[in-house]
């Protein structure tokens, strides 16, 4: 009994470095941000340590709440598009018979990660711009006379987000599809299910965990995205991430920026709780 107890204590030590790491780099900054959000902004950009709820009032002010809703909408659309494109892709890869083909396709999914995220996003500017790949091709083919306005639109933001987040949807779905026992599929076939019924009764329910993970990995970072709207959306379509960045870097209104962060974090927390509940209901 005593030995087990002592051993348990030593095991506790193993997690100490990561606890310290998280304390310094995560918990303490979050506490700072939480505290800042209840202070007043200083005249020249600092923080006056006077309690105030003004920052939160401002968050729920017309403009900002609109941007909030727009951000959530963009994140939701992005998640849905990632599912619609990612699920069939993951399914296609998992049903390839040859392991070589599978690995090649997975490689292609991961390949973009070998290039810097900024460069990949910049390259979309080249593709979508007025003199970019799409417009010049269409003009040269005589389909259009004037270049289409593609860059610096919500469409460009949505395309850029889809492009960047798709692998985060494909990989977990692929992993869960790959784990499904082939005999279970055969068993359902043997019991009278045709291919469509096999998919909806067996394969989809058994891959839903991967889908949830994908939703996590896409929706949450999408909420905080600011580089893609910055580069592809121009000044016209900021997301909440852009506003937060501006508060800390340009406007130097740290308390307001902190309040925005707290609201985004609350939103993310709610998402996680909802997702976890559905996850548990679907566990087996």
């Amino acid at each position: 009994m005593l030995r087990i107890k002592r051993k348990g204590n030593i095991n506790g030590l193993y997690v100490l470095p990561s606890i310290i790491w998280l304390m310094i780099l995560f918990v303490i900054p979050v506490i700072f941000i939480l505290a800042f959000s209840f202070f007043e902004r200083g005249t020249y950009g600092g923080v006056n340590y006077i309690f105030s709820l003004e920052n939160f009032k401002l968050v729920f002010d017309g403009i900002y709440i609109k941007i909030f809703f727009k951000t959530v909408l963009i994140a939701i659309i992005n998640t849905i598009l990632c599912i619609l494109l990612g699920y069939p892709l993951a399914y296609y890869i998992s049903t390839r018979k040859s392991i070589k083909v599978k690995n090649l396709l997975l490689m292609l999914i991961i390949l973009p990660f070998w290039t810097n995220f900024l460069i990949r996003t910049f390259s979309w500017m080249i593709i979508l711009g007025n003199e970019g790949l799409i417009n010049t091709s269409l003009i040269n083919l005589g389909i259009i006379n004037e270049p289409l306005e593609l860059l610096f639109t919500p469409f460009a933001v949505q395309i850029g987000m889809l492009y960047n987040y798709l692998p985060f949807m494909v990989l977990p779905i692929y992993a869960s599809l790959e784990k499904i026992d082939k005999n279970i599929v055969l068993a359902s076939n043997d019991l009278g299910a045709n291919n469509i019924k096999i998919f909806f009764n067996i394969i989809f329910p058994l891959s839903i965990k991967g889908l949830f993970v994908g939703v996590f990995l896409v929706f949450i970072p999408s909420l905080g995205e600011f580089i893609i709207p910055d580069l592809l959306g121009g000044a016209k379509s900021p997301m909440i991430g852009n506003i937060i960045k501006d508060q800390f870097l340009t406007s130097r209104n740290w308390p307001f920026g902190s309040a925005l962060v707290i609201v985004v974090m609350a939103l993310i927390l709610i998402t996680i709780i909802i997702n976890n509940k559905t996850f548990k209901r679907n566990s087996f």
Partner: protein
Amino acid sequence: MLRIIELTKIYVDINACKNISLDLIKNEFFFVLGPSGCGKTTLLKIIAGLVEQDSGTIILNESDISVIPSNERPFNIVFQDYSLFPHLNVFNNVAFGLKMKKVNKEEIRNRVIETLELLKISNLSKRKPSELSGGQQQRVALARAIINKPKVLLLDEPLSALDEKLRFEMQQVLLDLKSKLNSIFIFVTHNQEEALSLADRIAVMKDGQIVQVDTPKNLYTKPITKFIAEFIGEVNILDQKEEERIKLIRPENINLSQVPFKENYYEHTENGKIIQLLFKGNSISVIVSLDYSKTFKVLLSNIIQFDKLEIGDKVFLGWSENSIIYVKN
């Protein structure tokens, strides 16, 4: 009646099934017995329609069913690893086949309850497969198959994963089903004891081919090849001089004595030294080394009479001509 005619399936480099023909009848336990990798599971999957044969036909009651896809064949498999649907509870696992056939809900409910009762697992209906023991999972797998009242029930190694007690229970369950289900039963196993104790007929399979089809008793007493004789039970090779025929004798058909037999009491006699004694509870297995560096296995069932045997003892072996088995090489 199910007729399998010249069924062949060739995988790259290996013959999974080679020209297999079998006739199967209702209410009979038919076993396909063979070592692992002999192609017996492939045969089972072809019959179920889960694997397509290269050639050959399967005829059920006069009609060719080898063109019917597996989901429309009135056949059901009980998989070796059970393959229950992990996301569905026992009730929905068992109901699956009927749901696929769009049977109405009321009837599904009644038939599931009835089937669960038949297999004595009514109390498990709300559990998920992960919450069941191996024996319970097997009953669910069996329930899931028989609820569809299949014309042919295919069972892949149904008893091999169970311990002694559960195996006996499951044997009783299966024998009970035999009289109730009115189906053709095809079992696949590598376990000869399992096959001998349950089968009405056994087909022994080797390298994708059927070697012999017969009753358990005939297979044991009149095996046609050395492979079958060695695979089902144990044998001692008496002499391999003739090219075509080999003479074998079962260990239990050899008599052992510590004193020489009377002259002409047995047609064949040998003598040697005991080099090993294996106590098996209800019997003793004795390994005897003959003078000319050959060993014989002898099985003694009267353990009291041979209580005094010790390693190194000189013993005399004798057997009669009619207990010798002649097989093809």
